[in-house]
């Protein structure tokens, strides 16, 4: 049981490049979340999904997109990378009446 798996673990992008952060979970959880963590700021919710085919914006969605074609996968897309998107990104999933389980994060630098 791997839990929540995020790839890649580290990435350096140039301004204007695009990339997809992958997140997959093997717990059959309906709820999935993307957060970004910046020093001293806690976690900010980017997007979330309550089930396959359903996504919704969180607190800081600008510059990002998501899709949820399957229960297992919830990729996060950056179309035009900007320095302000340098952060650590965490994916989480949750079953009904359960706490969120987090992946180990993707550390993204945009130069």
């Amino acid at each position, binding site marked *: 049981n791997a839990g929540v798996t995020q790839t890649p673990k580290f990435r350096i992008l140039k301004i204007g490049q695009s990339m997809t952060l992958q997140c997959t979970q093997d717990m059959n959880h309906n709820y999935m979340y993307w957060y970004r963590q910046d020093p*001293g700021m806690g976690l900010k919710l980017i997007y979330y999904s309550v089930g396959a085919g359903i996504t919704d914006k*969180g607190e800081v969605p600008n510059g990002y997109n998501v899709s949820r074609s399957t229960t297992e996968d919830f990729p996060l897309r950056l179309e035009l990378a900007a320095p302000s998107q340098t952060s650590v990104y965490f994916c989480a999933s949750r079953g009904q009446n359960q706490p969120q389980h987090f992946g180990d*994060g993707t550390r993204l630098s945009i130069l």
Partner: protein
Amino acid sequence: AQSVAQPEDQVNVAEGNPLTVKCTYSVSGNPYLFWYVQYPNRGLQFLLKYITGDNLVKGSYGFEAEFNKSQTSFHLKKPSALVSDSALYFCAVRDPYRSNDYKLSFGAGTTVTVRA
């Protein structure tokens, strides 16, 4: 709107001493409250939660938290801290009476350092 405040950026204690990490919350109704811990280069790990019932909640690794409705607080405590408890701690809140969006709001985090 729901929100959480962790008033201390850092807490430093000696090993064997009691540890307290403070959290206050703001929601429109009765809250669901959570504590998570984060070790370096890892994701957040769930410690404990308060949903309803007994105000004193026991969780993983000997941690407990006390829900105080009148003070809108949910402080994390451990009677005897270990060096291995050194980590970043997050408090989180959810308002269950909002629409079914199931979102948590996290505090900014408190760095705990336990010295040997």
